[in-house]
């Protein structure tokens, strides 16, 4: 089937859950309630680093309406975590950051629960804190004194306050630096950024008569939440059922367990259903934000601006627990290599503990941090060499068949096309249309995370199909995309595909709504299921039509063989009576491409699967007095392989860029002496409709071998380049590069002043 003949895939069809969402009928986890439900709240540490000498809950426990209180002493002593098993439900003998959970209360109302929190007395003895990640690398203070006893993935290399350290080495960087025309060294820093989903993390838990706990929550990874909960509760996984009624955004901030464990433990303690929802303050002080980072980058070039060697180090501040820090830091190494041919590479990543909030995997983890450094430095070098920044990039970008940093082979490469299209659209020939106005460009590549997906697809007696998947629709439209693939393959309309809610007890496994993979992997699983259903239907039709299977095809909701045909609905009815129904299990797994393991050390994601390529270009003005940035235009050219639904691809691009603009210009969880100074949505500044320009999307389609109809991952890339593209445009407008995110008006004004004096 070639793409231009597709009836359903490739079309701008409305999403399956749209009507429910515009009428208020769509149920989100926050809307979920049960009769007799209690409300849970969490007491959080007021100290950044302290021994907990005593927790006295007696006054709180005696309050009317309080039904249960738990602390570390009441629960199994388990450490969990993805890369490093360093995390506990509550602070044990010490609080590791301001906001660390100390105790949880369940009460008949939220107000009572809150009053009970205030009545719990905690006695602390302060310990010297570590806030600066570079200091934490040198310090004798141990944030986890027992770090050596923790279990971790075998690939993770740890040492004292270092939660993970990875390397990529290609060729002889030292030799290249020694004989280079010029060598440049710069330092960049990026800030802690909240994912900013509009529905806070929430969970309602209830235990049934068989000792099974059901948790209704808004996780992006129901199966990971199930496994983690099972560990925390010390139960076999089958006794934990995780279901996601609906989810108000995630962006990676809802990958790992959030409040589900508090709800489940309180429900066990009180033998009542318990709902726990984070407050805005908890979101900004104790959720899973994007790590702050420091990037040191050194680059050698020849006279023509060819990249001879790059070396560098990214230090990722993962806060009190490793979280996704080791993986995030390691992924930065591929981002730092970029879509460029470079003679030699010597990169190192370090994820380090500090006494601040534990962090997570916000959309394209490490992407914008590493890209900001890497792409701003390209412009700095171009300026010094007197080269056009676009030209400098075009001289260095990878071509079809070139090796990537891990020794893998770049395939279906489109980076040059993306760069040229973005540059043309922004009017690159005129980079400084007027004083105080400039244009910037940045590009990157990014993986389509693999992982396995399973789906069940059932044909109903009316000829429609039901898609059962363990993948959560977090808003991207990814499941609508997968349903379009399924409808296409079964000759159905999109409206014929019913999608069930996610329930770990009923749905086949899915690696989860993460890593730009949902449409890609669930779509591939739908292809497999459709192929199996065709086999079942053709076999059945062969008997009914007395026609050979080789002659059969699906067309307009019928199995057709020559001039004979039978409807899919009829086949489903026949099968119901005589064959148990038409149902298929489709699976997909994307094996990692071949690579050279000698290049990559201690890296949990050593090679990228089905990478995509993209370029962003921006036109902005900087107020010469205040440093305030106004974005005039913003263009994205992104290779999506094959656009299954262009509308929602644009939606991903527009939304991702908006988040990137936030990270570039305004968003930062500000710490002072271990306390968050802006734990509310007025002072934590996410872009409003007034701050985001009309983002222009150019969809590039360079088919992949692995995705459905050639699709590549779409969701994460749009937030990677904005900080770099904007930084470069600010430099074009003002002559100075702010090298730290967010590039606030104050920082830009200060940089301009230094330049003028």
């Amino acid at each position, binding site marked *: 089937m070639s793409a231009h003949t597709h009836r359903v895939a490739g079309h*701008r069809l*409305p*999403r399956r*859950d*749209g*009507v*429910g*969402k*515009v*009428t*208020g*009928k*769509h*149920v*989100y986890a*926050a*809307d979920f309630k049960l009769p007799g439900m209690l409300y849970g709240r969490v007491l959080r540490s007021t100290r950044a680093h302290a021994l907990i000498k005593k927790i006295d809950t007696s006054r709180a426990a005696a309050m009317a309406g309080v039904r249960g209180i738990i602390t570390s002493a009441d629960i199994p002593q388990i450490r969990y975590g993805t890369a490093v098993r360093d995390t506990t439900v509550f602070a044990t003998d010490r609080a590791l950051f301001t906001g660390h959970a100390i105790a949880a209360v369940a009460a008949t109302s939220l*107000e009572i629960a809150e009053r009970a929190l205030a009545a719990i007395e905690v006695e602390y003895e302060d310990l010297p804190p570590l806030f600066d990640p570079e200091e934490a690398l040198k310090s004798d203070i141990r944030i986890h004194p027992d770090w050596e006893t923790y279990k971790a993935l075998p690939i993770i290399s740890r040492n004292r306050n270092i939660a993970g350290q990875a390397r990529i080495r290609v060729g002889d960087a030292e030799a290249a630096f020694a004989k280079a025309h010029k060598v440049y060294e710069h330092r960049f820093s990026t800030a802690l950024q909240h*994912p*900013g*989903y*509009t*529905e*806070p993390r929430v969970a309602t838990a209830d235990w049934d008569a068989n000792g099974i706990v059901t948790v209704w929550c808004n996780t992006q990874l129901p199966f990971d939440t199930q496994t983690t909960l099972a560990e925390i509760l010390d139960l076999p996984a089958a006794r934990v059922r995780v279901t996601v009624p*609906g*989810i*108000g*955004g*995630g*962006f990676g901030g809802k990958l790992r367990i959030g409040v589900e464990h508090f709800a489940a433990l309180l429900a066990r303690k009180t033998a009542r259903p318990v709902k726990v929802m984070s*407050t*805005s303050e908890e979101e900004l002080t104790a959720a899973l934000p994007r790590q702050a980072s420091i990037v040191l980058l050194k680059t050698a070039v020849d006279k023509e601006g060819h990249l001879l060697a790059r070396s560098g180090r990214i230090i990722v501040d993962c806060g009190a627990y490793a979280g996704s820090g080791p993986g995030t830091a390691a992924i930065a190494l591929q981002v730092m290599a970029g879509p460029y041919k470079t003679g030699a590479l010597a990169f190192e990543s370090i994820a380090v503990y500090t006494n601040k909030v534990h962090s997570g995997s916000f959309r394209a983890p490490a992407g914008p941090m590493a890209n900001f450094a890497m792409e701003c430095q390209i412009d700095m070098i171009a300026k010094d060499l007197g080269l056009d920044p676009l030209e400098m990039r075009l001289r260095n970008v990878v071509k079809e068949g070139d090796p990537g940093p891990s020794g893998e082979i770049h395939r279906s490469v489109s980076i040059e096309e993306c760069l040229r299209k973005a540059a043309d659209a922004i009017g690159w020939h005129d980079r400084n249309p007027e004083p105080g106005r400039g244009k910037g460009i940045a590009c990157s590549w990014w993986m389509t995370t693999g992982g396995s997906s399973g789906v069940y697809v059932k044909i109903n007696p009316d000829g429609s199909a039901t898609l059962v998947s363990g993948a959560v629709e*977090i*808003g*991207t*439209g990814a499941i609508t995309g997968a349903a379009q693939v399924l409808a296409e393959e079964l000759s159905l309309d999109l409206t014929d595909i019913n999608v069930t809610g996610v329930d770990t007890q009923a749905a086949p496994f899915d690696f989860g709504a993460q890593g730009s993979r949902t449409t890609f992997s669930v779509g591939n699983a739908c292809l497999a299921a459709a192929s199996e259903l065709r086999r079942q239907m053709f076999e059945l039709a062969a008997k009914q039509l007395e026609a050979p299977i080789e002659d059969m095809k699906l067309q307009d909701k019928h199995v057709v063989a020559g001039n004979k045909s039978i409807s899919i609905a009829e086949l489903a009815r026949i099968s119901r009576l005589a064959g148990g129904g038409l149902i298929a299990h489709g699976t997909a797994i994307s094996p990692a491409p071949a690579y050279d393991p000698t290049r990559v050390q201690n890296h949990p994601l050593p090679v990228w699967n089905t990478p995509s390529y993209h370029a962003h270009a921006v036109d902005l003005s900087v107020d010469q007095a205040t440093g305030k940035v106004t974005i005039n235009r913003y263009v994205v050219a992104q290779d999506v392989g094959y656009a299954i639904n262009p*509308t*929602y691809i*644009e*939606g991903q*691009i*527009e*939304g*991702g*860029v*908006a*988040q990137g603009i936030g990270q570039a210009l305004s968003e930062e969880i500000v710490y002072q002496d271990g306390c968050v100074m802006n734990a*509310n*949505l*007025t002072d934590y500044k*996410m872009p*409003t*409709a*007034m701050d*985001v320009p*009309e*983002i222009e999307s150019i969809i590039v389609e360079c088919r992949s071998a692995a995705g459905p109809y050639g699709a590549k991952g779409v969701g994460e890339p749009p937030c990677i380049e904005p900080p770099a593209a904007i930084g470069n445009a600010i430099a074009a407008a003002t002559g100075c590069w702010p090298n730290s995110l967010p590039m606030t008006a104050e920082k830009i004004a200060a940089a301009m002043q230094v330049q003028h004096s």
Partner: protein
Amino acid sequence: MNRKILNIVVNGESHQVLIEPHWTLLQVLRNEIGMMGTKENCLEAECGVCTVLLDGKAINSCILLAAQVEGCSVTTIEGIGDPEHLHPLQEAFIECGAVQCGYCIPGMILTAKSFLDENPGCRPSRDEIREAIAGTLCRCTGYRKIIDAVATAADRIALSGAKQ
């Protein structure tokens, strides 16, 4: 407890609810009347997901004490259209691809409705729409398609008004 009776009209239906003095309109709508289409997030009038129309005007229901709306008429997202009879705004939001996770959408649509109702028959510019919805945060869409949707709906409403 010192509960009081609140008389309130929600989506055209009269309700009598026993309320506690500290309850907000949001709590009453969600917990007592069951209008779950009105969402909750910051509870500090910072995000706009809890927006409803109070006597036709968009307000943040999370900071308004329920006791203050005695005798008032409230419209929630459930009150402006249903799956079989979508309001032009609801229709346009779907058509323009303005819905992603959807959690901000009820508040966004009601904000837009209040804005369009205040300026009957007008076809607002994109900048005017931008300003009108600036109080409601959307983290998914980058706003462009939301502005498309409001502009599309405004056109259709103006057109059908002109015909009448």
